[in-house]
């Protein structure tokens, strides 16, 4: 029935389908008995019921499901009924011109100023107009004025007036030259500064080197001199101590020797000063002897007074005798 070539796979494996063109069959309303189905009637496609006519923009789209939803169907019937009812209601409410009286009839009349005949045919007249075809204009004759004076010709060739390369050279030189000059100046400046800094850095390195040596030697000198001082001081201290020790020993020896006979000397001196005394002797000395001496003194005094008295008597006598002698002389 259908002249469809079997679907075969292409060489790449993609799917292809092709069929010979065939006319659309006419479809009758009722299904034919199966025996007669093989006969195919071709109808005019313009009169086919299945083809959509006219503008399709407001077309109702047939729902995809074959059996419409009963709810949907009911709802649509409802809507249809409602619209019909509304239309009828509107029709009823609309006021119309009253019916014509008996024996009269309503007729449409024009009330304009000028009546015009209403007819379907529009009076039209055709008028044609056609311009003549253009004729070729004949060529204007060349205007050649009468020559007067000398004829001179001149022709400016390609590169005569203006040689771009030469003219642009000056401009380019200026532009490039100025730029290069400026950049050279900047580069020179930077190089000068870089050279200055490099020189400073080299100097600084050497200076640091030597300075470190100087400082290290200074520190070393300081350490060594400090060390020397400390050792000298230490030595002096040692010497001083030694001397002190020697003096101490000498002093000790001397003292020992000096004080060796201190004790007996002390005792002797004490004894000689009478600090160790025999109490009886002392007593005799302190008490008895002074009394004794005093008594002796007393007795001696007495003797002396007696002697003195005697002396005075003798003297007296002698005097008297002398006087008596003198008297006698």
């Amino acid at each position, binding site marked *: 029935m259908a002249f469809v070539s079997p679907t075969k796979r292409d060489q790449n494996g993609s799917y292809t389908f092709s069929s010979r063109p065939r006319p659309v069959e006419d479809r009758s309303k009722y299904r034919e008995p199966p025996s007669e189905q093989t006969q195919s009637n071709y109808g005019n496609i313009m009169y086919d019921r299945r083809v959509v006519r006219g503008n399709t923009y407001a077309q109702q789209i047939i729902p995809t499901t074959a059996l419409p939803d009963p709810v949907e169907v009911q709802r649509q019937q409802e809507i249809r009924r409602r619209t019909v009812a509304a239309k009828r209601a509107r029709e009823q409410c609309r006021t119309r011109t009253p019916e014509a009286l008996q024996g009269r009839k309503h007729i449409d009349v024009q009330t304009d100023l000028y009546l015009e005949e209403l007819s379907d045919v529009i009076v039209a007249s055709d008028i044609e107009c056609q311009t003549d075809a253009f004729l070729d204009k004949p060529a204007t004759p060349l205007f050649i004025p009468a020559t007067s004076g000398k004829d001179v010709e001149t022709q400016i060739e390609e590169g005569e007036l203006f040689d771009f390369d030469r003219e642009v050279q000056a401009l380019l030189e200026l532009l490039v030259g100025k730029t290069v000059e400026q950049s050279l*100046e900047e580069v020179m*400046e930077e190089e000068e500064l870089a050279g200055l800094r490099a020189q400073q850095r080299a100097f600084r390195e050497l200076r640091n080197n030597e300075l*470190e040596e100087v400082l290290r030697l200074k520190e070393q000198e300081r350490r060594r001199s400090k060390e020397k001082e400390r050792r000298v001081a230490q030595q002096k201290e040692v010497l001083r101590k030694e001397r002190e020790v020697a003096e101490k020993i000498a002093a000790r020896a001397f003292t020992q020797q000096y004080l060796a006979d201190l004790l007996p000397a002390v005792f002797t001196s004490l004894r000689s000063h009478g600090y160790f005394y025999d109490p009886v002797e002392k007593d005799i000395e302190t008490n008895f002897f002074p009394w004794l001496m005093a008594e002796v003194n007393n007795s001696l005094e007495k003797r002396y007074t007696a002697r003195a008295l005697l002396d005075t008597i003798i003297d007296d006598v002698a005097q008297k005798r002398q006087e008596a002698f003198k008297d006698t002389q």
Partner: protein
Amino acid sequence: MAGSPYDPSRAPVAYGRRAVPQLFSELQQQEAPRRLRALASLCDLLRDPERISCTVSGGFLEQLKVLLKDEDSIVRAKTCELLHLLTAHRIGRQALLSSSFLPHLSELMDDSSSSCRRNVQRVLNRLTLMPAGAEALLTLVPKLMLKLREEEEDVQVLLLSTLSSCSCLDPLPALASDGVSLLLHKLSDSSTDIRREATAALMALSVCEDGMRQVCEEEEVLPVLVDLLRDEDVEVQANAAGVIMYAAITNEGKQQCLDLDVIPILLSLVSQDGEEEKDKERKKALVMYSLRALTALAEAPQGRCLLLEQLPLLGRRSEAAEEDQDIRRNAQNAVRVITWTPCNTGEL
């Protein structure tokens, strides 16, 4: 290109010797865009030393002082850039110093615009190329150290470079403003430039006795420096070796270095295996400083014991085969110190 009428960002430049005076008179105009254009043209012109001498002798620098206080920050930044160009030559530097620009510049260090601050630091950095400049900047050192805590990375590099140049002249102001602990933070920074400049500044600081003492007293400094000896950049290594060489002069320094086991590292730096020709140039400072550090450490008894075993290595460096005279002298010195005994004091 200066002076081209098609460049809208630059003022037109007069011919010959009228160029600079005319641009400076343009600078006195009221409108800021005109001043900016004149400044841009001046920046292009002043790369030429002759123009600089013309500027200086014409006495136009006072105008620049006025412009430094302008309201527009771009004008201030451009003026600083102009001063930066002036300092590229000796005449300019001298003129800047003698016209007392420093108070104005130190005010600008606190400016709100970062490009302005960056240009000011560039100017100060260039000024230190001259010893008189470095001396004049010594008064600004405390302020520079304050700025070191706040600024961004590239400005920090400039600050550190300025500080190290000033401290080479006189390390005391920087030491007084707590320089060692500040530089300690910068030593472990991730950027190579900052590490290089920080170690250079620290080396300048540790030259004087006070500095040496502070470097030994601050706890973290020597360990960080020993780590930096193994850094990738040669200059950082050289500077770290320099600080160690100065620190090892004092007794505490020697003791700390020996505790940190720094001698094998220094020996590996001094040894010659696998060195190429171009590396030798760059490594010269590193080798010199390492040899000096070893010499200083050899004065301590522990150091001497370790180094007596390594004498052949140093002996190789001190032979006539070594091309560089300074390295040879340093190595011979080191050998002499290591093998010193009290009996041969006469030689020392």
